[in-house]
């Protein structure tokens, strides 16, 4: 199975581990990701907040490349990229808007854009739970996980098409297939503070703290995420969050691709686990222990 692939800027920097594990998991599943040639930044958080047309132009260029590559579906790991690309495609349905965006581009964008969806949905589209389970070499049995989607993945529902906007369950079904025990995590679509990490540090720490606090309370072994910014806020800023919440956290925050990779028996170094600020060693021991236990029986 082949998909066009839009990695997004963070994949090349802050979330290199997400990129690494995405590539590793997709390779293991036989999903070939073809990176769009000459892609550019989607505009990230600032662009669309300042000028929707400029933001759409940035995305339209990427979508145009994908259309010229004759891609049917473009996958992207990052919810923010996904949101921008999908919003742009949706807005471009309006001919007046499209005309204004075309003005900003060197050549008018393709009339029809390929569909853009998340890597998570792309995997789920090709493999059902049974097929995923068949790939599992190291079951996550006995591992308690909280799936945390962040605020962006499922919202707004009319653009994102990601199940119930308040209670998406796709990550749970993928990781359950890997053997993990998924807790009902009520804050799965709450905001981590997102890009306010710098201008509103306290608020971000509070938001992230709330998520970490509940996860700790629920006794999970790790929080699993699908967004580079969520991962950064929950992992990198965990101490700030702990301070603000007057608590102590030691909660590994892994990408779902990293968790799946572990279940597929991919070595941690090929999944970028060393980049985690909060170590996942205990989690790894637990997974290995479970394996050993399985072996004994």
């Amino acid at each position: 199975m082949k998909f066009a692939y839009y990695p997004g800027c963070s994949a090349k920097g802050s979330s290199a581990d997400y990129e690494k594990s995405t590539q590793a998991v997709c390779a293991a599943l036989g999903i070939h990701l073809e990176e769009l040639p000459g892609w550019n930044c989607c505009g990230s958080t600032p662009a669309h907040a300042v000028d929707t047309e400029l933001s759409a132009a940035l995305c339209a260029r990427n979508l145009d490349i994908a259309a010229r590559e004759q891609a049917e579906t473009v996958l992207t790991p990052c919810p923010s990229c996904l949101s921008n690309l999908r919003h742009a495609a949706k807005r471009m349905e309006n001919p007046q808007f499209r005309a204004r965006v075309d003005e900003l581009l060197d050549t008018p964008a393709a009339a029809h854009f390929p569909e853009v969806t998340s890597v998570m949905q792309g995997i789920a589209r090709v493999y059902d739970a049974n097929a995923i389970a068949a790939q599992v070499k190291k079951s996550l049995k006995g591992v308690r996980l909280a799936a945390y989607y962040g605020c962006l993945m499922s919202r707004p529902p009319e653009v994102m098409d990601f199940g119930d906007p308040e209670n998406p369950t796709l990550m749970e079904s993928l990781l359950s297939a890997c053997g993990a025990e998924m807790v009902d995590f009520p804050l799965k679509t709450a905001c981590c503070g997102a890009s306010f990490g710098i201008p509103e540090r306290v608020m971000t720490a509070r938001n992230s703290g709330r998520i970490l606090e509940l996860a700790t309370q629920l006794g999970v072994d790790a929080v699993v995420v699908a967004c580079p910014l969520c991962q950064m806020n929950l992992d990198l800023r965990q101490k700030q969050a702990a301070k603000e919440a007057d608590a102590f956290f030691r909660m590994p925050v892994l990408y779902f691709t990293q968790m799946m990779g572990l279940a597929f028996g991919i070595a941690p170094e090929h999944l970028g686990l060393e980049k985690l600020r909060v170590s996942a060693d205990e989690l790894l021991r637990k997974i290995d222990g479970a394996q050993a236990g399985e072996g004994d029986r």
Partner: protein
Amino acid sequence: MRIGVFICHCGSNIGGTVDCAKVAEIARGFPDVVYADDPMYTCAEPGQAAIEAAIHEHRLDGVVVASCTPRMHEPTFRRTVERAGLNRYMFEMANIREHVSWIGRDKEANTNKAAELVRLAVEKLRNNKPLAAKSFDVTKKVLVIGGGVAGIQAALDCADGGVPVILVEREATIGGKMAKLDKTFPTVDCSACILGPKMVDVAQHPNITLYAYSEVEDISGYVGNFTVKIRKRATYVDWSKCTGCGACTEKCPSKKTPDAFNEFTGPTTAITIAFPQAIPKKAVINAAHCRQFVKGKCGVCAKICPTGAISYDMQDEIVTEEVGSIVAATGYDLMDWTVYEEYGGGRYPDVITSLQYERIMSASGPTGGHIVRPSDGREPQKVVFIQCVGSRDRSVGRPYCSGFCCMYTAKQAVLTKDHIPNSQSYVFYMDIRAPGKMYDEFTRRAVEEYGTEYIRGRVSSIYPDGNGQYVVMGVDTLLGEPVEIRADLVVLAVGIEASKGSPQLAEKLRISYDHYGFFMESHVKLKPVETNTAGVFLAGVCQGAKDIPASVAQGSAAAAKVLALFARDKLESDPQIAQVDIRRCVNCGKCIRCCPFGAIKEVEIRGEGKAQVIETVCQGCGLCTATCPQGAIQLSHATDNQILAEVNALCQC
């Protein structure tokens, strides 16, 4: 013919954008028009008098009034021409207000259009024939559908007026939603104590026949003569023998049966009497949970019953009743609030509906009136009430206000404090809607005397904090700040919708209903009890959200309508019905096949089969006329020739 035309100015309503004098002048040139005038207010007394005078003076045998919609004043003017000695069907209206002056800005175009509509009316009138109404007998008996407080009131008032009443209730007991309430606002008196006596009156009234645990299966007929089929669902208990002693419910081993009366806040037994004051106080077996039915063996209740009332092989029974009028009082249900995933979508045990909270507070409820949390039986200290869950929320397709939630939320906050003095209640609200007698004062009391904290804003999410409490995250829009409350119990004021099955019942009654299943009244302001189907009246929340006093008032209003209808021994049939030209009829049966009312039958006339219209059954839709290729069946007052006259007036190349 000698036709008179009256072009109404309706003050400036029509006169403002239509040159009425010119329309009258044009009308004078129409065939058969011998008189035309443009009065200021035609419907006013002088206007009507002028019509009568003109009929006499100019020997008119037909009148056209161009004014507002015929849906408003056609009956008025028909009476006017009748007073002057004309047949009431020798009258036509042109709607030059709603369809002309109010929607068009161009005076020239409006004037021309008005003149054309007058022309249509004149051409129609030239093909009109005097029609005479026939009278028919009325069955002076009323069917009340729904035994909530509105239906109870309607039934009692009709029965007191001497009219036999058939009261059909879907549940095993009457009382409806009010019977489930603990106390009522704004007096905080006991709901069961004020409703109970009325329920007993229903049971004891000689004029009332109660069919509980029954549903309306089919309705046919017309005002004065409806035939109703009622399905008496099998209760598996012979109610003629059951004394309501309750011995069976004590001994029933299926103790985990879901309890619908208690809104599923606690279990009950498979054989059950809904609550102590139930009317009728008879036991019913829930076959889906009864061991005898599920496993094929048990029979405990049959053994224990002192009167031998248990009958496991009972079947549904259909009874037929003839009535002259119907009152629909089918009430409401709560909308499915589990669409609110942000409130847990029904996954959190201590996030409950207001109606569940009523049952928890009620002395006859599952906890005996002790307020405790469903999850662990602990007494809650902090209770959060969230209003407008499924009301005024377009995102879940519920744009309307459910009306009474503001008041009962205040009441529940007050009662919470009464039950648990050291508790603290919070109410998230959008607006406080308290426009009733002593209502606003009551909500003030909840705030000022009971210390309820009202927070203006919506709740964005509720989640369990893992320590047994729930984090309620909302916003205070007055302070412009996010609010976070750790609550022990969250009560949702869930919005209402028409009760389940309302659209289906509306179709049986042939009345209209809106997108949410509420029944449509005949006129929003002036006919709030009537429907567009003669003889069918509405009471209570089935027509739209309203509280108990309003429901009771509407119940009485519906009863007044029924009694007024039955004050006459005979009703007049509408002569606007289909008629068969037997020379043209070839008895092909196409009209019989598609008549929605079964109003056409085959008869033998001089050895030949012919179609015949049953005059009292025909409703005048004209489907048969459009179906008959022979043109043999014509709807009086909307014949082919009358409509063709209008088409020809407009379309003559």
